[in-house]
């Protein structure tokens, strides 16, 4: 029975994902068509750079890609292709979108994955520490750091890291992809803002719980602060933190734009910016789909985690049997 429900849930999610894919892709197409400027010229500029873009090149592009077809002529074909898992070819590079995405998505996932791994423990620990001792040195430090890191543009942080770590010590490469060590600086840049936010959100969530009688009673029954935190506090902290974290995947990927271009990291954010400028519709659709699926699944994960942490959400509705 439970398995049936899980299956049903999964199916519903899948249907949702499909609807989302169609909707978002269509919207992308519509948006790109709605934007002012000449699409062929944009594509040509994206392909050949500003030195070679001119109307002749644009005409050739238009003819090659059939850009004079209307939105309604293009849409059904795109839908059909999507259903066959064919995302088309990039208007700029000419390579299959799926191939490009596989490559870029991998790079971005690596980057944001490492960033997440760096940010989670640091942010959580600092946040818990700050929440336990409000007004204490850690609290003040995290406040200052959070504000600083959140307002400091990531390119500045990136340059500072490059200068201090890469140029200063020579221990890590400045940019490019030269093995795992190359990931460290860009991931740290990304992680900094995330950890800063996480620390503050965690702190606030913990403050909320510490003010409750449940916390007081947990302590009164004899648990030490650490034990009470581990067994009782973490779940309460987890709920708002998970809700917040679910959204941060977006910022990890989109925030990666700047980081990726500074560190010459071939990720999806970087590709997206270029695609938007070049009106590379299939790439945009592909990236949007990819990101969409990523966010949805990340959301699903955080949602599942918060359902696991919050029994009130699992409670059978009144009247339901066992």
């Amino acid at each position: 029975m439970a398995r049936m429900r899980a299956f049903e849930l999964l199916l519903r999610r899948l249907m949702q994902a499909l609807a989302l894919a169609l909707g978002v892709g269509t919207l992308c197409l519509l948006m790109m068509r709605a934007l002012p400027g000449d699409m062929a010229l944009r594509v040509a500029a994206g392909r050949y750079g500003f030195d070679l873009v001119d109307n002749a090149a644009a005409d050739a592009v238009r003819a090659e890609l059939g850009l004079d077809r209307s939105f309604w002529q293009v849409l059904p074909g795109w839908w059909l292709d999507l259903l066959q898992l064919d995302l088309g070819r990039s208007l700029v590079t000419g390579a299959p979108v799926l191939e490009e995405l596989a490559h870029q998505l991998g790079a971005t996932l690596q980057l944001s994955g490492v960033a997440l791994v760096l940010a989670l423990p640091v942010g959580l620990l600092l946040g818990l520490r700050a929440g336990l001792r409000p007004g204490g040195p850690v609290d003040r430090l995290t406040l200052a750091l959070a504000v600083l890191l959140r307002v400091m543009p990531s390119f500045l942080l990136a340059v500072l890291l490059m200068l201090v770590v890469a140029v200063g010590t020579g221990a890590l490469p400045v940019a490019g992809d030269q093995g795992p060590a190359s990931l460290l600086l860009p991931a740290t840049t990304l992680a900094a803002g995330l950890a800063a936010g996480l620390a503050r959100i965690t702190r606030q969530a913990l403050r909320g719980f510490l003010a409750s009688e449940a916390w007081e009673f947990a302590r009164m029954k004899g648990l030490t602060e650490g034990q009470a935190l581990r067994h009782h506090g973490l779940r309460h902290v987890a709920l708002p933190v998970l809700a917040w974290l679910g959204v941060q995947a977006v910022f990890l990927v989109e925030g990666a734009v700047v980081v990726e271009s500074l560190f010459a990291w071939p990720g999806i954010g970087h590709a997206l910016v270029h695609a938007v400028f070049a009106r590379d519709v299939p790439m945009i659709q592909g990236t949007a789909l990819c990101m969409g699926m990523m966010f949805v699944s990340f959301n699903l994960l955080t949602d599942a985690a918060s359902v696991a942490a919050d029994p009130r959400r699992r409670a059978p509705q009144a009247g339901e049997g066992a």
Partner: protein
Amino acid sequence: MKRSAGALLLALVALFGLAGPALIGIDGALQDLSASLQPPGAAHPLGTDLLGRSVLARLAEATRLSLGVALLATLAAAVPGVLLGLLAAWQGGRVERALVLLADAAMSIPGLLLVVLCAAILPGRKEMLALGLALVMWVEHFRVSRSVSRPVLAGDAVQAARLLGFGPLHLLRRHLLPALAPQLGTLLAFGVAQAVLGLAALGFISVGMQPPAPELGLMMTEALPHWHEAPWLIAAPVAVLMLTVLGMMLLLGDEEVRA
């Protein structure tokens, strides 16, 4: 104590942005190519930028412009975000699922694209930029407020209030917003920072405001190539933004849920 410090900081920033341009009396667009990248000194308290413009004057104008747009964007994201989050938590079921789907969809559309589109609808309008940013940022408020309000809505206090005949507005003001306040303060403060930096990123890819409009984020971006020879160029806008965010966090951030 903390709150008044926060309010003071914000007041200072607001004063700087609103009255600053008049008080400083220098036109931020006035160039002097022979005085490019001057360090801070008597004539220019914060030095000059690459085109020899007074950084102080530009900073004051940028403060007004950027923070104005950022605040607008943050509010435009927070108000519907929070309300929809509460609605989802309140209604549950179909409504909640639909709203979650909407949020997922909003997140799936690359934010950049949304902003670019908004900016393209009415080019050069600040409000459209704010709208675009808001379309990206509301999801965060939606999710956090949905999660925080769920247990509150399930509690006896809300049940009692509904029995007593109170409507959604009362619940919002007396029950939900106070519970949300601590998280919301942080979110709003971060939101403003994010909007300013987002604006900068947009300006950087030339979707944002056009020159010579002074803008905090753009000032940072423009100053990046000169990080080693004129660090004050970056430090000045970062400092203004920092004071703003710090002020907001101190003012909004630390309310205890219970006595």
